[in-house]
């Protein structure tokens, strides 16, 4: 779990941290869509500029954002290579037998790569500055209209928040079970396929049983505290939409319009 930046939350009080999570979610989506609609360099660079501005508003070091690109570095390079290989229009810049790099190809390659970077960075912007619990709240609020077509939005949101709350617990339990079985001679570095299957079972069966027991007890606790699925509830967590959030969304919409028009 260490070293992977995507999905991790970094606590803070920056301007960006304090924005309404719904606004952040909306512009993240707008950005990603616009990113793929935009075809020309000036506008993708505009996106990059806006992103750099947002990144500075988070007061999180740029190195963290750079680290978020590590996992997809392979894909970025692959994209560039693919584009270069298959686009042959334009002036050749370099050739080696059949293989040649044209200026058009290079341009396209880098453009595609930049798109990927923009998408990853904007997603990271969202997850680094927004608590998972707040993301769930935002999702619940934004998808609320779906209730009209009988989709159990708040039940799903509660399921997600409970699942998130137990992630660290599950992680600790997994560690403990692995250690217990290691103490009984399980060595993950050795063993044929048949043994590996038993090793896996010795981890999964206890985990499942613990989880089912947990689900049982949790359901009892929730029931006794008056939870009735489907019944309306109030919420202790209020998301307050501020003017700043509206401004942000408007900026996003402008970007989107630019993307469509040009």
């Amino acid at each position: 779990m260490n070293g992977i930046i995507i999905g991790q939350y970094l606590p803070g009080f920056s301007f960006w941290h304090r924005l309404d999570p719904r606004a952040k979610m909306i512009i993240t989506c707008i950005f990603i869509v616009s990113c793929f609609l935009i075809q020309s360099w000036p506008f993708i660079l505009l996106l990059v500029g806006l992103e750099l501005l947002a990144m500075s508003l988070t007061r999180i070091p740029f190195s963290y954002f750079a680290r978020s690109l590590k996992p997809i570095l392979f894909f970025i390079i692959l994209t560039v290579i693919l584009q270069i290989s298959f686009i042959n229009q334009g002036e050749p810049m370099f050739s080696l037998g059949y293989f040649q790099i044209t200026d058009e190809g290079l341009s396209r390659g880098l453009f595609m790569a930049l798109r990927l970077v923009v998408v990853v960075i904007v997603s990271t912007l969202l997850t680094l500055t927004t608590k998972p619990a707040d993301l769930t709240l935002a999702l619940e609020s934004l998808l609320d209209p779906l209730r009209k077509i009988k989709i159990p939005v708040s039940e799903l949101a509660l399921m997600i928040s409970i699942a998130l709350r137990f992630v660290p617990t599950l992680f600790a339990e997994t560690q403990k079970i692995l250690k217990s079985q290691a103490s009984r001679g399980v060595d993950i570095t050795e063993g044929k396929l048949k043994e590996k299957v038993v090793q896996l079972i010795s981890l999964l069966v206890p985990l499942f049983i613990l989880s089912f027991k947990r689900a049982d007890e949790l359901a009892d606790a929730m029931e006794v505290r008056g939870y009735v699925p489907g019944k309306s509830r109030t919420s202790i967590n209020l998301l307050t939409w501020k003017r700043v959030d509206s401004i942000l969304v408007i900026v996003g919409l402008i970007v989107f319009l630019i993307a469509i028009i040009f």
Partner: protein
Amino acid sequence: MFWAVKEMKKQMVSLENVTFGYEKNKMVLQDFNLVINKGQFVTILGHNGSGKSTLSKLLVGLIKPSSGVIKIDEQVLSEETLYDIRQNIGIIFQNPDNQFVGSTVRDDIAFGLENKCVPYKEMCRLVDEYSALVGMKHQLDREPQSLSGGEKQRVAIAGGLALGASLLILDEATSMLDPKGRQEMITLIKELAQDRDKTIVMITHHLDEAVYSDRVIVMNDGKIILDGTPKAVFSQKELLESVKLDVPFAVKASYELEKRGVINELCTNDEELMSHLWTLNLIQ
């Protein structure tokens, strides 16, 4: 002038001829009868398997008796009254993790209130009030993985109290805690017990927790074998040992010391033992 005011003791919990079994031919409780009055602090002792945990599940309607009547605050527990009755009960189970629903302390205390559709401002007030009462005042944003077992259990108590529960059931709530956590819980429960409007039922096998209650009930094989004050119950040393329970240190020590003529009374808790020993005239 003689004006007698007879205080009608309200029955908070009543079980009348209750029979229950998880399997067809194995009854855990048979024709079980018990009455707990309002404001009492009762401890129910019993070894694992004596039927005490079944009792708590019956009281909150998680399981239904095959016969008999259960009344909470003089209201019969049934399918129709279940929802309302539960709002008056705060139950804290054994595993601190498996009952902590919220993503933060605030969320968990508020869970029951949200279910009850309490308005936002009122919820905030209640969360503030009851988190302070259990000693978690400025910790509302803390997440469960950073909390100790004792802290989680105290949050559970806050949640029950915030709902306005007048009956608090603690089902082996200290069993999975370390000594520090247990101590915090016992201190809190003793404080809450002082409020005569609250009825507290503590189910445990830790004897040192039982010594502070008004009444101790000992269960074995689904039956009540002892029911009385801590003093009365703990003086039955042999009977307790025969049902796989032990007696507190103060009882053992005062029993022997009484035999040796050092003190003249059986003591049920450490404080009582000390106060008796302190009255001895020991010239140094």
